[in-house]
């Protein structure tokens, strides 16, 4: 059992800068929770506060119901994997992994058993006598994870553990981390700035921005029902397209009025009807996923705009097409066999039923 609860957690430095503001998160036992956000959003600070490496200015941090704000790191029964691995360079892999256990005066046989067991799980048995400098980044990464595993802690913390690995290795390690989580059945809290890592690893994801929780939800919910403009723009590659406008009523139907167009809203699809009604006459922002935009060389019944292709990115399985609509940069994700070229004139349209709407002032989603 390891349930981590953050209640009104805040952190301020001496000069009065609030890096973490009133964070409330309930992490269930055995859950894999990812903290994600842009640089400087406070995700690493929050993780370090859970570890006990940073002081908590305000609020309660509960581990299995016990308040651990004032417990030193060693008494929290939490292990952490650092971004740069933080392996002891003068020790062998074995000694690195055994260090914490030796400090706890565990019998030698038991230490050996645990280290070898962890080495087996991580497939690093053959490296056991090497020193960190004689290993690759990926191998060091495993040792760092091994050092956390041997202690059998209640909670694992990961601070951007994959950011120093190359893309291929990052993909592999992501899969192995998922496997590891299933095998160890332990609560894991993972920090990353990479939303793909967040989406693939997390049972639930905390999206942070400037020390505030923007949304705490499952990956699919974050993608399909972003709570606000920030989450909508942050989660998903390529990012969501936005168009500012107004909700107006025209001939008793609700319409989205942008600078150039008046688009009738098919409210029956969206379920936004009730809430959007209340926004009549108000400024809103419409959001569209790249895959919900259609681009064709001939006019169709979906066509809303005529524009010119500015950039085409062929990704193999898909094509990303960039163009401008109402002075906004738009990107559409099309199937891989789409043949488009720079400078081509295209007809762009979308299904308004898939559109997201946000309050232009509060930036909150309108549902």
């Amino acid at each position, binding site marked *: 059992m390891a349930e981590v609860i953050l209640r009104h957690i805040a952190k301020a430095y001496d000069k009065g800068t609030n890096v973490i503001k009133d964070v409330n998160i309930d992490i269930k036992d055995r859950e894999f929770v990812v903290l994600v956000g842009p640089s400087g959003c406070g995700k690493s600070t929050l993780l370090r506060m859970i570890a*006990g490496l940073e002081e908590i200015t305000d609020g309660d941090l509960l581990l299995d119901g016990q308040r651990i704000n004032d417990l030193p790191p*060693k008494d*929290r029964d939490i292990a*952490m994997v*650092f971004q740069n691995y933080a392996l*002891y360079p003068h020790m062998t892999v074995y000694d690195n992994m055994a260090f*914490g256990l030796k*400090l706890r005066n565990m019998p030698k046989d038991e230490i050996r058993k645990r280290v070898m067991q962890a080495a087996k799980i991580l497939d690093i048995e053959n490296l056991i006598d090497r020193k960190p400098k004689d290993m690759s980044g990926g191998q060091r990464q495993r040792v760092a994870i091994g050092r956390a595993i041997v202690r059998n802690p209640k909670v694992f913390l990961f601070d951007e553990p994959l950011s120093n690995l190359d893309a291929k290795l990052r993909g592999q390690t992501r899969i192995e981390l998922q496997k590891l989580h299933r095998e160890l059945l332990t609560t894991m809290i993972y920090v990353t700035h990479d939303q793909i890592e967040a989406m693939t690893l997390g049972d639930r994801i905390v999206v942070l921005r400037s020390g505030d929780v923007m949304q705490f939800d499952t990956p699919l919910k974050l993608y399909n029902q972003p709570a606000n403009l920030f989450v909508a723009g942050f989660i998903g590659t390529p990012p969501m397209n936005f168009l500012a406008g107004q909700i107006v009523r025209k001939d008793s139907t609700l319409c989205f009025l942008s600078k150039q167009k008046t688009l009738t809203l098919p409210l029956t699809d969206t379920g936004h009807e009730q809430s959007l009604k209340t926004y009549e006459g108000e400024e809103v922002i419409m959001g569209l996923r790249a895959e919900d935009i259609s681009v064709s060389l001939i006019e169709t019944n979906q066509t809303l705009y005529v524009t010119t292709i500015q950039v085409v990115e062929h990704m193999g399985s898909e094509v990303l097409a960039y163009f401008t609509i109402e002075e906004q940069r738009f990107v559409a994700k099309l199937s891989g066999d789409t043949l488009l070229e720079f400078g081509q004139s295209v007809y762009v349209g979308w299904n308004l039923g898939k559109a997201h709407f946000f309050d232009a002032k509060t930036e909150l989603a309108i549902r």
Partner: protein
Amino acid sequence: MKKWMPYLLVSPYLLHFSVFVAFPVVFSVVLTFHSWNIISPMKYVGLANYRHLIHDRLFWQAVWNTVRFLIVHIPLQILVALTLAELLNRTVRGASFFRAAFFLPVIVSGVVVTILWQQLLSYNSGILNRLLTTVGMARVAWLDDPAVAMYSIAVMATWKNVGLYIILFLVGLQSVPVQLYEAADLEGATNWQKFRYITLPMINPTIFTVVVLSTIGGFSLFVEPYIMTEGGPMNTTLSAVMYIYRQAFQYYHMGYSATLGFCFALIILFVVIIQRRYVEQEV
């Protein structure tokens, strides 16, 4: 560029090197096989100087004195410098003041420092003895007791040089990644365990540098005993370099002095090689 241009450019250094480094080294090796008092012509004596050296009890006492000095000086130097560096490495108030204060003796002339300490350690009027008598303890003959004098000098030399080694240790300490300590915190290490298992091994190269530098510095011990004790009492503070100096410039035994210097250099080389071996095993 002309072909001779590079040679011209390096010639000032080469000239300096040949006259003041290469020539004296070669000449002193030649001297070891001669008897020479500067005035009369050199006389070839073969290995006589070396034979004399082997039986020269005063030389071996001087070497032993120097070793005694090092045995106290080096550990003390490391202990004090490392402790102060550890303290200064924390965010203490006025750290930069202390850093400057500890470094000051390093840049003050050795002669000045030595004279100051002579006053400080004086049997009758020294502050230290006055303090002792104030608290009801007996005076100590810091510089006149054969059993104490060399150690007094070792303490003084430590005080004089500690600032330099504090800086070296500070650089070493600051090069240890903070994450290692954080990782150790999470693993349950106490402050002492962190120091023992992380700091010490991580700054091992710095410790080696300090050991070598203070060994070489210690072997060249001269100013302190020359001014404070003139090698006494009973030759207990006669350092090897002082003895070499005496042979050359008081007795004008240039050939013998060169022999002493040459052998002493071999001893230093031998010691440093041993130290290096030891450290290479450790790292």
